[in-house]
């Protein structure tokens, strides 16, 4: 039997490529984006980051003891991600968005759909689907985050990590997370859980791409 991580890579590779080759994403990774669009993107990302830990908590509380290794993985991950919405807020401040404006921002329908799906999947589809959210977001951060951060820095003439601390640091951090995530994914053996993870990856790539397009 193929290890689940390998199976997941194969079953979701077209969705990853669809994200990567979306014209808006292509252009952003190659050339960066104007400051107004970057602000909008960070505002949307704020909502994704803010709901990340609650989604993980919802899933962790529903995961059966037979998958306790996933629950522990989520505990550790939540610990690491705690407070990262502050990084997004700092980046937003660096590009001219006040904290009050960030907190008052209403997420786009696609971001609501992304978060909404992840809560629903953890609650109703299968709690292991949360691993699909982790996989998609970590692929986006660790594979595309670095080049995107460089492109933003060049196009907006930002200095140091100012304005890109969230994206830049996650590109590095999530590289380490990927290796840990692979190990935990390989422990998932039952079909229902595997199918739920695959569906979640496809949905997260889809909604994330749409969110990217709207900014």
């Amino acid at each position, binding site marked *: 039997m193929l*290890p689940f*991580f390998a199976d997941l890579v194969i079953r979701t590779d077209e969705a990853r490529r669809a994200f990567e080759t979306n014209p808006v994403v292509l252009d952003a990774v190659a050339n960066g984006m104007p400051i107004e669009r970057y602000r909008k993107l960070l505002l949307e990302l704020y909502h994704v980051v803010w709901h990340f830990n609650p989604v993980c908590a919802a899933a962790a509380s529903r995961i059966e003891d037979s998958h306790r290794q996933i629950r522990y993985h989520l505990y550790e991950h939540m610990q690491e991600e705690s407070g990262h919405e502050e990084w997004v807020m700092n980046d937003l401040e660096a590009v001219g968005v006040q904290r009050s404006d960030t907190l008052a921002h209403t997420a786009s329908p696609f971001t609501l759909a992304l978060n909404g799906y992840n809560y629903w999947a953890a609650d109703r589809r299968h709690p292991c689907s949360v691993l699909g959210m982790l996989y998609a977001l970590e692929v986006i951060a660790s594979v595309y985050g670095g080049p995107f951060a460089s492109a933003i820095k060049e196009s907006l003439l930002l200095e140091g990590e100012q304005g890109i601390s969230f994206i830049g640091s996650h590109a590095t951090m999530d590289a380490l997370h990927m290796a840990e995530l692979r190990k935990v994914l390989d422990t998932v053996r039952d079909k229902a859980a595997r199918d739920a993870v695959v569906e979640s990856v496809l949905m997260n790539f889809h909604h994330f791409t749409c969110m990217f397009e709207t900014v």
Partner: protein
Amino acid sequence: MTVPLQGLPALMGRPYKYIRLEWSSELAALRVRTCVKPIQCYSLAAMAELQRVFSDISDNEGLVKHFVMTSDVAGVFNFGGDLSLFVLLIRARDLDSLRMYGRRCVDLVWWMETAPLRGVHTTVLVQGDTLGGGLESVMPFHKVIFERSAQAGFPEVLFNLFPGMGAWHFTIRKAGFTVANEMILSGRLYTAEQLYRRSLVDLVVDDGEGEAAIEQVLRSVSPRLRGTLAALQARRFATPITYESLMQVVDHWTETAMTLTDRDLRLMERLARAQVRKAGGADEGAVEEIKRLELDTAWGEERSGNTGWGDEIGTGVTAWGALQN
């Protein structure tokens, strides 16, 4: 009960996303046009489609006598491996999946290598850039046609890797050890003319003349197809390439890929980003990025005195050319 399709309907009737098939009944020629848009590379899905075509040809022995491959993406034949997938798997420390990717590539190469046993002659037309795995995929074809503006090379060494899916075997067979050494260890890019001089390309034609060249090759081979295939099979005996040794190299490639550092991966990402720029319509792409990387390497070579072929100095393609222009 569904009856499996056979013959031409089986071959031509499948829905494909990343390739287009054309059939010439007069020459019994199957043409595959690859269109992995917007970044033309060997993605897992594209390779699965190619493997399907190869299996259909094998399952319908005697139907296809000529296999022809071209690209439908303007300016690019193939960028080779899916660099983003490599970065993903290396960062995930997933040796098994990366090995599986490499082995799937080798399976495609092996089919090309054993095509004479299936009664199939193979021809490829390269119009545009072909890098790394893209060039490796061209090497096993019996007839390699390049349009004059096409450029190719094995840039892997620039990010501390090497081409692992047949480059050594097929370059040595066609051009000898010295050329293989030079091309693989330098990471340089070569013009069609330079590759022709090194015997890696059989025919260089002016831009826009590639289609006519394919037709000419097919028509010249057709009347003596059996003899040609027998000779090509004999060539295999004379200069054997085994599946096992191809696998040995790809396994070594996988293990080496796992040792890439963050700096190496960032270089790989730089190339991937350049590919993306070109796909987005920019004038400059991966080839120009490699030339910039070559420049860095060239400074080291200037100190060591290893500057490549003297008559190519100043051509604008070698590292020296880039330095002097």
